[in-house]
């Protein structure tokens, strides 16, 4: 019984939150890794793109709530998501036309594009703060829990409860669908294959008649989807605050690099590696260990390896360790 209680506590406080956070990071990192693979630079504006997409989704969520539209037990934000994606797609395509395209024509070095993306980051950051302000916003409605801790306790008779929030269940489910769709697209469709070919070898792609501008456009569209979905899921699970989204850049970059920049599979693996390490290392294990260890060994202290404020330190430490042993990341980056 104690073992089961410990297991449930572990699932409740470590596994489920880690899984949800990992899925959010993975989708974010997929966007970063796609831009890196195809446009060849790390997009510093990605966190702010996520914030922008979430902001548009929030606006539509509020609108639908006012109109009385809802999805019943599911958050209204799901209904607003397509509009958020469309808004972000317009923003990204506009940014590309107005800013990035010029540098492609100049055959600019990728590192110059990185600096350009810093400028874009400033602008997007300003736009988001200007439009929605800097404060915390929660836009989750509908049923809060799939299983609440109390219901679980009543059901199983255990001391510990396992709560699964709707946002967590939704995150994992969405992540599975998104990833499956993305891989199907990249590996099975003609356009997807041409994107991989372009990422692999630009000159040869040109010789095969692949239109670079089209590849770039499709890439931005996919990135708009990924960024908005990641942002909305994160916002539903925690809350929306522009500065937090900007700060998500570090764990997202860390995920993409740990997995191997340019490799979509790596981005997913990296997301989960980073998320689980963060949660594991910053969780106070006293409760779980109290159940698992014999009474004489039960810990007095919190058994928290590091305070939660050090979660960035964890992302970074994992990153360095992986790079020291495998400089190309867990999965070798695609032709990096």
């Amino acid at each position, binding site marked *: 019984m104690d073992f089961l209680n410990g297991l449930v506590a572990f699932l409740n406080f470590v596994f489920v939150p880690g899984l949800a956070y990992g899925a959010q990071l993975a989708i974010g990192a997929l966007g970063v890794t796609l831009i*890196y*693979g195809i446009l*060849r*630079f*790390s997009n510093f504006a990605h966190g702010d793109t996520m914030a922008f997409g979430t902001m548009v989704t929030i606006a539509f969520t509020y609108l639908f709530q006012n109109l009385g539209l809802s999805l019943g037990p599911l958050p209204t934000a799901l209904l607003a998501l397509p509009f958020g994606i469309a808004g972000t797609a317009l923003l990204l395509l506009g940014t590309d036309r107005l800013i990035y395209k010029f*540098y492609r*024509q*100049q*055959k*600019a*070095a*990728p*590192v*110059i*594009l*990185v600096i350009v993306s810093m400028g874009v980051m400033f602008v997007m950051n300003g736009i988001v703060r200007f439009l929605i302000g800097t404060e915390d916003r929660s836009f989750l409605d509908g049923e809060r829990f799939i299983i609440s801790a109390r219901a679980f306790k009543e059901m199983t008779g255990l001391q510990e409860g396992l709560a699964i929030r709707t946002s967590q269940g939704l995150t994992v489910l969405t992540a599975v669908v998104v990833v499956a769709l993305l891989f199907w697209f990249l590996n099975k469709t*003609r356009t997807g*294959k*041409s994107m*991989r*070919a372009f*990422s*692999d*070898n*630009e*000159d*040869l*792609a*040109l*010789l*095969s*008649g*692949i*239109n*670079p501008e089209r590849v770039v456009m499709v890439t931005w569209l996919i990135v708009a989807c990924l960024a908005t979905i990641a942002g909305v899921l994160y916002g539903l699970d925690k809350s929306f605050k522009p500065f937090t989204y900007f700060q998500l850049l570090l764990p997202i*970059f860390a995920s993409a*690099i740990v997995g191997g*920049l*340019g490799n979509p599979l790596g981005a997913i693996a990296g997301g989960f590696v980073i998320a689980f390490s963060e949660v594991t290392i910053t969780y106070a294990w006293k409760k779980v260990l109290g159940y698992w260890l014999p009474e004489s060994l039960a810990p007095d202290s919190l058994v928290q390896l590091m305070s939660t404020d050090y979660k960035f330190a964890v992302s970074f430490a994992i990153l360095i360790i992986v790079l020291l042993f495998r400089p190309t990341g867990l999965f070798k980056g*695609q*032709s*990096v």
Partner: protein
Amino acid sequence: MSDNPYQDTRGNKDASIAKQGARGTSEGGDREGRATPAPSGPFLIGENMTGGYGKGPDILHGCTIAVEKGEIAVIVGPNGAGKSTAMKAVFGMLNLRGGSVRLDGEDITALSPQDRVVKGMGFVPQNNNIFTSLTVEENLEMGAFIRRDDFRDTMTQIYDLFPILKEKRFQAAGELSGGQRQQVAVGRALMTQPKVLMLDEPTAGVSPIVMDELFDRIIEVARTGIPILMVEQNARQALEIADHGYVLVQGSNGHTGTGKELLANPEVRASFLGG
């Protein structure tokens, strides 16, 4: 410092922010001209071509290269003579300052490389001529990117021509040996069913046995009626199979003739064929 401020990386090699490795270098991708009728002359000819890369000095000085239907034409010459540059010029991958390129009765000088693919030209560059992270089959599919019809027959033909590729069709092309990679590269170019095939040193870096096999395959391709324009380091072997040969010297035509003539020419023998 680079001349183009947008290309100035300051020697930065940071892999965490910018994808390293060669990026696309070919010029003329944004060329938007059209082909104009120009009947007469050989099937494919780059005539009096003059030009170089970007704003750099001229590498080609009035160089002329042509290939007729059903023939193999070979370009040989010392290192730095501009052989690869001439091929790229014919394919539109650098902006010419003089001269013209004509294909099958049309002047295509103003066309971009991708438009030339549509016109029926196939090109196998010397380096980076396969998509290493894609499977063999995907490489062939990408070769057929411009085709909207059913290309399965063409793929079967290519698997017949290069049986080893069929065996490795689901393997990443980057995992293959040098000779097999060259077969993928040629196969990719053939997928468009080109009217003319251009090969830039197809035997570079492969062992002599593989080289012989590759030559055999190239002759086989030529027998199907596709004219072949080829740059070769192994001048003797190449000229033996060539209907037409061009010896380039410093970006212009040094000697021209049939393969046999050039092999018999004492001057050519002395300077390029080792006596």
